[in-house]
C-alpha cells in the first residue's frame, strides 16, 4: 500500500469538487464548534456554581451534632427477644454543641498534609433587636485572620472592615440584607440576644455581602471572645471547626479520616452541597448528549456525501483496480478524504468554537449586585478542544469507512464492460 499516492489521489478528488468538500467540512465544523461552546459554557456554569458554593462554605466542617434521640436506660441494660421495653416521654439530655479540646484539634489539623487553613468558630443563634423590632439570625464568633484566609472575607466587605473586629471587642460585621432589615449602618449600635438569654449591645463595624441570600439575610460575624461572653462560656468553648483543603476533592476522604481519628461528627462539602453536584452531573450528561447528537448528524452528512462520491467515482475505482491498485489502496483513497474533511472541518470548528466562547465570555450579563458575575461564565480548557477534535475525527472515520469499504468491494469487470 502506498499511502502517499493514495493521499495524492484523495487530495485531487477533494479539490476537484470544492463545493461538495466544503459542505461536508462545514457539517463537522458546526458540530465541533457547538460542542466546544456547549462544553465550555456548561463547565463554566458548573465551575461558577461550585465556586460560589465552596467560597462560602468549608470543605470540611467539624461540629458536634446535637441529637435529642437517645436510647433509654432501660433499653441499654435490658434487651431480650421475648419482651418489649416501653418508656414514655423521655426527656432529652442536656447536651452542649461544644467540641471537646477544639483549639488543640485546630492546631493538630493545621499541620496535616493538604490542609490550606483551619478556623475555629463559636456559632449561636441570635435575635437582633433594633428598638421594638426583633429579627432572628445567626452569629459566628471568628478568629478574623484565620477565617479571612479561608473565605477571603475582605473581598466580601461592602462598607467598614473586618479588621475592626481585632481592635474593637464590641464590634460586629453584619450581612447586607440583615443590615437593611435592621436599618443599621457602620457605626450604629445593635442589641443581640441569644436563646439562652445572654444579651449584649454591639457596634456595627462593617457590612458584608456574599451574594448568597441565605447568608446575607441572617449571618453576622464578631470575635470569638464576644460570642463566648454572650453565651457565658469559657475561652476554650468552640462549636465549629472549618477546614479548607488545597484540593476540594481531597476533602471527601479527609472528612472520613478526621471522623475516625477524633471520633467527632464531620461533614464534607459534597454532602452539604449535593444538589450542586447532582446538577453538575446532569448538565454534563446533557452537554455530552447534545454534542454527540450534533456530531452524529454531521457524521451522517459525511456518510451521505462519501457514499455519493463513491457512486460517482465507480469508473475511476474500476480503472484504479485495473491498473493495479489493491482494495487497501482504494479504501485509503476514500478514507483519507473523510479524514481530511474531518481534520480540516474539526480545526475550523475549534477556531469558531473558541471565537463564540470568547464572545460569550465577554458578553455582559446582568445579575444584580449580589452575585459576583459580570459576564457569562465560560471555561477555556485545552482538553475540551482535544476532545472535540478527537470526536470529530473519529466520527468522520466511522462515516467514511463504510463507503470506502463499499468502494473497495466494487467488481471492476462489471463497470469496465459497461
Amino acid at each position, binding site marked *: 500500500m502506498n499511502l502517499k499516492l493514495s493521499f495524492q489521489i484523495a487530495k485531487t478528488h477533494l479539490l476537484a469538487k470544492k463545493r461538495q468538500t466544503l459542505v461536508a467540512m462545514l457539517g463537522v465544523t458546526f458540530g465541533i464548534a457547538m460542542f466546544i461552546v456547549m462544553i465550555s459554557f456548561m463547565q463554566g456554569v458548573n465551575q461558577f456554581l461550585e465556586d460560589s458554593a465552596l467560597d462560602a462554605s468549608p470543605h470540611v466542617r467539624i461540629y458536634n451534632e446535637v441529637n435529642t434521640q437517645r436510647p433509654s436506660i432501660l433499653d441499654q441494660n435490658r434487651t431480650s427477644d421475648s419482651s418489649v421495653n416501653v418508656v414514655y416521654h423521655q426527656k432529652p439530655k442536656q447536651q452542649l454543641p461544644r467540641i471537646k479540646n477544639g483549639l488543640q484539634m485546630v492546631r493538630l489539623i493545621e499541620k496535616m498534609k493538604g490542609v490550606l487553613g483551619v478556623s475555629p468558630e463559636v456559632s449561636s443563634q441570635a435575635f437582633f433587636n433594633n428598638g421594638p423590632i426583633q429579627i432572628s439570625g445567626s452569629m459566628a464568633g471568628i478568629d478574623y485572620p484565620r477565617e479571612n484566609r479561608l473565605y477571603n472575607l475582605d473581598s466580601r466587605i461592602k462598607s467598614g472592615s473586618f479588621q475592626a473586629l481585632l481592635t474593637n471587642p464590641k464590634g460586629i460585621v453584619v450581612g447586607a440584607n440583615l443590615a437593611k432589615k435592621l436599618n443599621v449602618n457602620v457605626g450604629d449600635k445593635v442589641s443581640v440576644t441569644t436563646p439562652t438569654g445572654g444579651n449584649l449591645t454591639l457596634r456595627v463595624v462593617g457590612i458584608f455581602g456574599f451574594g448568597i441570600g441565605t447568608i446575607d439575610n441572617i449571618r453576622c460575624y464578631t470575635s470569638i471572645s464576644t460570642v463566648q461572653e454572650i453565651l457565658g462560656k469559657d475561652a476554650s468553648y468552640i462549636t465549629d471547626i472549618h477546614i479548607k483543603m488545597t484540593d476540594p476533592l481531597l476533602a471527601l476522604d479527609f472528612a472520613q479520616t478526621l471522623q475516625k481519628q477524633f471520633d467527632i461528627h464531620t461533614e464534607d462539602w459534597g454532602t452539604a452541597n449535593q444538589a450542586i453536584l447532582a446538577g453538575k452531573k446532569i448538565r454534563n450528561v446533557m452537554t455530552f448528549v447534545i454534542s454527540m447528537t450534533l456530531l452524529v448528524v454531521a457524521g451522517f452528512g459525511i456518510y451521505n456525501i462519501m457514499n455519493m462520491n463513491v457512486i460517482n467515482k465507480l469508473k475511476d475505482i474500476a480503472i484504479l483496480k485495473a491498473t493495479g491498485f*489493491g482494495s487497501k489502496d482504494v479504501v485509503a483513497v476514500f478514507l483519507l478524504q473523510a479524514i481530511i474533511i474531518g481534520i480540516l472541518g474539526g480545526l475550523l470548528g475549534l477556531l469558531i468554537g473558541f471565537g463564540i466562547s470568547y464572545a460569550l465570555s465577554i458578553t455582559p450579563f446582568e445579575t444584580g449586585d449580589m452575585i459576583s458575575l459580570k459576564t457569562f461564565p465560560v471555561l477555556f480548557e485545552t482538553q475540551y478542544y482535544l476532545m472535540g477534535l478527537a470526536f470529530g475525527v473519529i466520527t468522520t472515520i466511522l462515516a467514511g469507512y463504510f463507503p470506502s469499504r463499499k468502494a473497495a468491494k466494487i467488481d471492476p469487470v462489471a463497470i469496465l464492460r459497461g
Partner: protein
Amino acid sequence: MNVLSASHINKYFFEPEKFQVLQDVNFEVKKGEFLSIIGKSGCGKSTLLYILSTMDTDYEGLLEVNGQRLTGLPQDTLAAFRNEHLGFVFQFHFLLPEFTVLQNVMLPALKLGKYSNKEIEERAYEKLRLVNMTEHARKQSSKLSGGQQQRVAIARALINDPAIIMGDEPTGNLDKANSGLVFDIFRQISHENGQTIITVTHDPDFANGSDRIIEMSDGRIVRH
C-alpha cells in the same frame, strides 16, 4: 516462448439463468505476438479477455502468465501482478478526469514504486512521445478528444513496460484516422519492443493487420 497460456477455461453466467459462456478454451500466446480475438457479439470473447486480465477470477481452468500460475491467487496479489505485468486499453478511454494527462500516465508507475518520481515523470514523457501526445501533457485529461484520450490510455498501459497489453475494442469508439493511429502504435510496440498484444476487436481491418487471429463462436475457439 509462451508468455500466456490458458487451458481448459470454462465460465458460466448464473444470471438470469445458468449459461456456459466459455467451453473448454485452450490457447497459448507467444512473446511479442500481436493477437486479435474476433467473433460475433455474445460469443464470449470479452469474457475471455477479462479472465486473461486476471480481473475476473470466477472461472474453471488454469491461467499462466509469464510462467506464473495466476488461477486461485487472492485479489490484491493479482492487482499487484496487473500493475507490473499487464497494461489495459479499453473501448471507452477511461482516464481519471480530475488528473492531468501526465498524472494519468504516471499513476500506475507511482503505484509500482520502482522508480523515483523524477524518473517516472521522464518515463511518462517518453511514453507520451511514443503516442505523440507530449504537448498535451499538462492538460486536464477530460479536456481531450476521444482519439487523444485513447492515445493517453495507451501511454498509461505502457508506463510499467508490461509483458502483455490487453485491449477491449481499443478502436471501437474511434474514427478511421484515429483507429489507424492506434493500430500503428500497437504494431510498433509489439514489433519493436517485443511486448505482447491481445485485443478483442470487431474491426476487420484491425484484425487483419495483426499477426494472428483467434475466432470465437458460441464460447469456443473455431479458428486460430
